[in-house]
């Protein structure tokens, strides 16, 4: 294909290799690809340079691990209106909202051109988080319920606006942006690698491994550094351990929200030894400081392997016992089955990723489609569910925990020799582009980086899976009782800070 360049996950290319199309061709190419279900858009962003806005679109081919990168240059003038990708395929809606909000590009036919996160440098400074334009239905029978930004529990801020018919939710609109810290901008400028790594660790503190692995992958690729087997090995084990830890915590949180006290306590306490293993490994329960670009700061040792074996020997029987019991209780199942359903068609249209997509039968798993770390070397088969309800999202967590335990136990049978405890100095190659995809426990994480003439970072784009999946939550709760909202929300457990950046 001449109008796009094909790359693999973590493959550096020169910017000049990316074809520049007219906006019409660019639109036709990418929306055309999106209509094929084996393709999905992993990132689409804009970048203002001088008077021109450069648009880059990354379409992943899930059938063969290729990623199609294409670009267009457009002008940003008050009188110019562009046709939106979103009218052709809904999954582009968040990307175009971001392009509109940050760069001021105007679309003639975008159906939902609302502010995304009220970024500090947004084009329209008059649009503020306090006057978000909520969707309204004028009716005497309906009422609105507003929740947040500050919620009842210890969680992050976001505003949920429900339109209800009695107890039933007709429509939910989710307003985010409260967590916006300006990370993408902070990534640029004269920074040390360590500063950038700490930033990556703080994108979403519950997905430290997912995001830091994506960052390290992007940085190492920009520097043409090939990480040794032992580095990839440690990162793979860390990724799976993070998945186990958070999935366990989520099982507990879901039980809390349906007032099932025993499940809440037992799953909650089962998470503790898992995150304490991270503490033993790297000195932080959320694995901050574990992943460093170019080196294996905390290699897997025989002692750690022993700790992991003991951990799972104790953890798994207790997890299984609790899970089996929970499954037999009608009062529990009544709250979970057929609650908060997302259909496969909806998941496809909104570009859902991760377990939120896999519970509807839509397989989106970067470990399987665009392997990184050691995932290409193990026979990884994504776990797929079909009902798309809260119960499916519980089942997938339990099964993914079991799968991850098997992977880790298999890996630690043979511990590789450590090659690089201390990093070699890395310098990014000038005028390059790289895309780095990882499968965090929430789903696909995408980091894109561009360097300038001098090899400095000129653009850093971060995409958390939550960017797509928040809409899945809004759709899932339609026609459900508003009292089921907490359990629906918890069953997705999406990131506010990952979305807001």
């Amino acid at each position, binding site marked *: 294909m001449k109008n796009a360049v094909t790359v693999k996950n973590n493959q550096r290319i020169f910017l000049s290799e990316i074809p520049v199309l007219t906006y019409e061709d660019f639109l036709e190419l990418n929306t055309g690809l999106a209509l094929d279900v084996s393709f999905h858009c992993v990132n689409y962003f804009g970048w203002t340079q001088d008077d021109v806005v450069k648009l880059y679109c990354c379409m992943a081919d899930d059938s063969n691990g290729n990623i199609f990168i294409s670009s267009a240059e457009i002008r940003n003038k008050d009188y110019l209106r562009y046709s939106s990708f979103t009218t052709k395929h809904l999954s582009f809606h968040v990307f175009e909202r971001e392009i509109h909000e940050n760069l001021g590009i105007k679309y003639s036919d975008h159906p939902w051109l609302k502010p995304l996160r*009220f*970024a*500090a*440098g947004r084009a329209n400074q008059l649009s503020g*988080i*306090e006057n978000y334009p909520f969707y309204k239905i004028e009716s005497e029978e309906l009422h609105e319920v507003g929740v947040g*930004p*500050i919620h*009842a*529990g*210890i*969680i*992050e*801020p976001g505003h949920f606006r429900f339109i209800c018919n009695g107890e039933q939710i007709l429509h939910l609109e989710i307003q985010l*942006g*409260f*967590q*916006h*810290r*300006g*990370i993408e*901008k*902070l990534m640029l400028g004269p920074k040390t690698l*360590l*500063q950038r790594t*700490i*930033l990556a660790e*703080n*994108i*979403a*503190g*519950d997905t*430290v491994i997912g995001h830091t692995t994506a960052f390290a992958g992007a940085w190492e690729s920009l520097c043409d550094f090939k990480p040794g087997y032992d580095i990839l090995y440690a990162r793979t084990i860390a990724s799976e351990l993070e998945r186990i830890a958070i999935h366990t*915590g989520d099982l507990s949180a879901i039980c809390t929200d349906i007032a099932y006290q*025993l499940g809440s*306590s*037992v799953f*909650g*306490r089962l998470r*503790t030894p898992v995150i*304490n293993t991270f*503490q*033993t*490994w790297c*000195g*932080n*329960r*959320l694995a*901050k*400081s574990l992943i460093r670009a170019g080196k294996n*700061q905390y290699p897997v040792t025989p002692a750690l392997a022993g700790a992991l074996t003991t951990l799972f020997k104790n953890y798994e*029987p*207790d997890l299984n*016992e*609790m899970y089996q*019991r929970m499954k037999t209780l009608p009062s529990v199942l009544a709250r979970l089955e057929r609650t908060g359903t997302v259909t496969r068609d909806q998941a496809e249209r909104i570009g859902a990723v991760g377990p939120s997509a896999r519970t509807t039968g839509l397989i989106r798993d970067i470990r399987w489609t665009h392997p990184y770390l050691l995932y290409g070397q193990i026979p990884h088969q994504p776990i797929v569910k079909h009902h798309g309800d809260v119960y499916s999202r519980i089942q997938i967590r339990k099964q993914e925990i079991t799968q991850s335990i098997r992977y880790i136990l298999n890996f630690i049978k043979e511990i590789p020799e450590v090659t690089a405890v201390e990093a070699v100095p890395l310098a990014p190659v000038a005028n390059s582009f790289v895309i780095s995809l990882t499968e965090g426990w929430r789903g696909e994480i995408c980091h894109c980086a561009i360097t300038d003439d001098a090899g400095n970072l000129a653009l850093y784009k971060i995409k958390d899976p939550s960017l797509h999946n928040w809409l899945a939550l809004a759709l899932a709760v339609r026609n459900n009782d508003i009292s089921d909202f907490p359990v629906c929300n918890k069953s997705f457990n999406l*990131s*506010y*800070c990952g979305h*807001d950046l």
Partner: protein
Amino acid sequence: MISEIKIVFHQGKQYIPDVTTVEVPGIFRGRPVISVGNAAGDKLAGLCPTGAISVSPVRIDLGKCVFCGECERAYPSTIRFTKDYKISSNLREGLIIQEDRDEPVRIYPEKIRKEIRKYFGGSLKLRQVSAGGDNSCEWELNAAGNVNFDIGRFGIEFVASPRHADGIVITGPITRNMAEPLQICYDAVPLPKIIILAGTDAISGGIFSGSEALDRSFLSKYPVDLYIPGNPVHPLTFINGVLDLIRSKKSK
């Protein structure tokens, strides 16, 4: 019923009997100790991602430290992180670790507002506000209430409404977009009320310090009663910090 009893029995004892003396498993980067005769000089300061280290004399500001351990890794003979998790103080200066002084970080009782120990010593209800927090501090504050750490045994509890609270716990560097909700929440808490900053991001902005997306003006308006460093704060750091603030040594 038998299954439930079996499950409970299989969990064994999970709570930590004494959260003031228990040791953290594995590696823990708590209060650092800085030895004299520092050969590292300016390099040490340049290494720190958040500018928490100043030289001659060498000092580490725990309110800025992200506990990445890079300084200890590069200069192990100068800096050593101990497993001491009691690193909270009611004074901002109290978080600054001095060269060659292996002394605990502490609460200064004479600086605590009178009403705090009088009213909150036996019961403290807190409203948490995440203002740009990355969900790691939020996580650990939740963990402080789980069956392992069980902060509830001390009468300390997180509540849903600011109207039921005795104070607020702020996590995150305080974003511009959260500045107003934070203010509204604080205003809704009845007097007397306290402010606790949990985590390095909240205390100094941490790695986000200087970002144009922050608005930390709230902190210049009100006195802060407790600073709890960490990235994120460890539940033991949080529990001990709050206990030391609301109770005198004798009454514990």
